[in-house]
């Protein structure tokens, strides 16, 4: 694989991503949701019903831990699902593939750009969560990362940043499944439906087959919690399960993409 070609393709993929309106719509919706959530939390805190330990500084942590396997995951599906299928459907996939760049280089650029997209979304989400928290919850008080668990504000903020960065890992694992659907389906709507469908399937399997729960990636989405607590054996099992998904699905994706006939 030629690094220069990979970087050129990656630059193009990033340009395509930032040109897409979808990204900005998702970020606006996320911000509105955060504002609503921060406001709701402040009201409940006033009435001392619950969430009294959440300050504006710890709100980003609270927000991500609550939404990583729901809203954030859903928006990952929305943003990544078109990466191959949109281009294949619109007939633009062939444009890059007839240039002096190998399919492996092109596809690697697609995968890296998807990861960078998630990271970008997490970064913006961190700042907008901080802003939402500051607006409705204020920046006073200690940093509680869970009930009764307190650390200094600076340590809390740094750990939250790492929490956000590390959250890329499980999301990257699931994004390989989304890319797989994007690879095989020409319609993005079908990719989105299948990705959401697999989420439900994972839920059902987790309930019906208790023993297989450990092999389901969505049951390991809270792996970032180890930023705030000591690593135990559960961390390693979560880590290797997610890594396994990345390796297996990227292998399938690369093999499939290399053999794919571009008919549009």
């Amino acid at each position: 694989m030629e690094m220069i070609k990979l970087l050129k393709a990656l630059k193009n993929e990033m340009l395509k991503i930032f040109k897409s309106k979808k990204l900005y719509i998702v970020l606006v919706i996320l911000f509105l949701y955060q504002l609503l959530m921060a406001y709701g939390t402040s009201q409940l805190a006033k009435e001392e019903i619950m969430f009294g330990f959440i300050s504006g500084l710890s709100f980003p942590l609270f927000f991500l831990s609550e939404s990583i396997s729901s809203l954030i995951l859903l928006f990952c599906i929305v943003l990544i699902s078109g990466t191959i299928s949109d281009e294949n459907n619109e007939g633009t996939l062939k444009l890059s593939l007839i240039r002096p760049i190998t399919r492996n280089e092109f596809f690697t650029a697609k995968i890296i750009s998807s990861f960078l997209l998630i990271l970008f979304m997490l970064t913006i989400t961190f700042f907008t969560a901080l802003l939402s928290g500051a607006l409705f919850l204020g920046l006073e008080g200690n940093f509680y990362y869970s009930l009764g668990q307190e650390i200094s504000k600076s340590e809390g903020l740094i750990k939250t940043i790492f929490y956000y960065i590390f959250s890329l890992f499980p999301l990257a694992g699931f994004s390989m499944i989304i890319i797989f659907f994007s690879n095989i389906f020409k319609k993005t709507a079908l990719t989105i439906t299948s990705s959401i469908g697999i989420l439900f399937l994972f839920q059902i399997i987790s309930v019906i087959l208790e023993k297989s729960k450990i092999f389901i990636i969505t049951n390991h989405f809270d792996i970032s919690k180890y930023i705030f607590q000591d690593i135990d054996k559960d961390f390693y099992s979560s880590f290797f399960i997610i890594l396994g998904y990345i390796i297996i699905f990227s292998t399938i994706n690369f093999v499939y993409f290399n053999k794919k006939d571009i008919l549009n």
Partner: protein
Amino acid sequence: MITLAEIIKATNLHKYFGKKHIIKGIDLNIKKGDIYGFLGPNGAGKTTTIRMLLGLIKKNQGEIFINGYNLDKDFKKAVDKVGAVVETPMFYENYSGYDNLKLMANLYNNVSKNRIYDLVEMVGLTNRINDKIRKYSLGMKQRLGIARALLNKPELVLLDEPTNGLDPQGMKEIRELIIKLANTEKITIFISSHILYEIELLCNRVAIIKNGTKLIEGNVKDLLSENNETVELITEDKGIENILKNYEYIQGIELIKNGYKIEITKGNTSYLLKELVNNNIGIQYMIPKSKSLEKYFLDLTNGDDQIA
């Protein structure tokens, strides 16, 4: 064996879609400097073949060499000096014309801004290059598609139906552009078109395929200059076939609206004329008819004139 003069050499290409055998052992030899026409009825496998030549569709069997490089083993080198417009040119619709060109230029090593602007000027889009693609007409898209195919100063350009959907003026412009490219930039052109007279006007060599098999490949002049020639005899007299049927050089006589269409062995027109005069046939006109590529194509494909 590949000679330096061959810019495309494809041997024994096969492609299956499921159990359907689409391409059945096609060989192609395109020499540097050719304007090569690729013809065939609808569904013959032209677009599939072109996509195989570009690596977009994976062949099941066969070998493709472009500029002497094996497409499978040396893909980057093989396509480095190749440009293509495959079917209706597609673009990133929310980008401007310039951004579309820039996006593809990014994938080459040395495509300067000047090169992009020169191409834009060449295809006559200077005033519209910053407009979004969705504001472009089909003709403008075709021209921009050709500009995009030329970004890397290619030695070979593959054009799949480049005039498809264009009005006569647009077709003429694209045709002139192709001739200009072939003559001034010394680019080898591989072109499929559904308009046979256009291929006849443009190309020096053609291949005709049908049902995934190549029927013939050769120089247009050689294909059209056969042993026989045809004349149309405009006359009011009848029964001429009885007079001419015994002459060896007469290959066929067909009754038409104002007279006869007579096919004769080449070089015997004067004998025919003499014989008609000797038999007191009233000749109003005798018109030599040259064989067109269209006629040749229809003869070869048994009248299957649904070409695309």
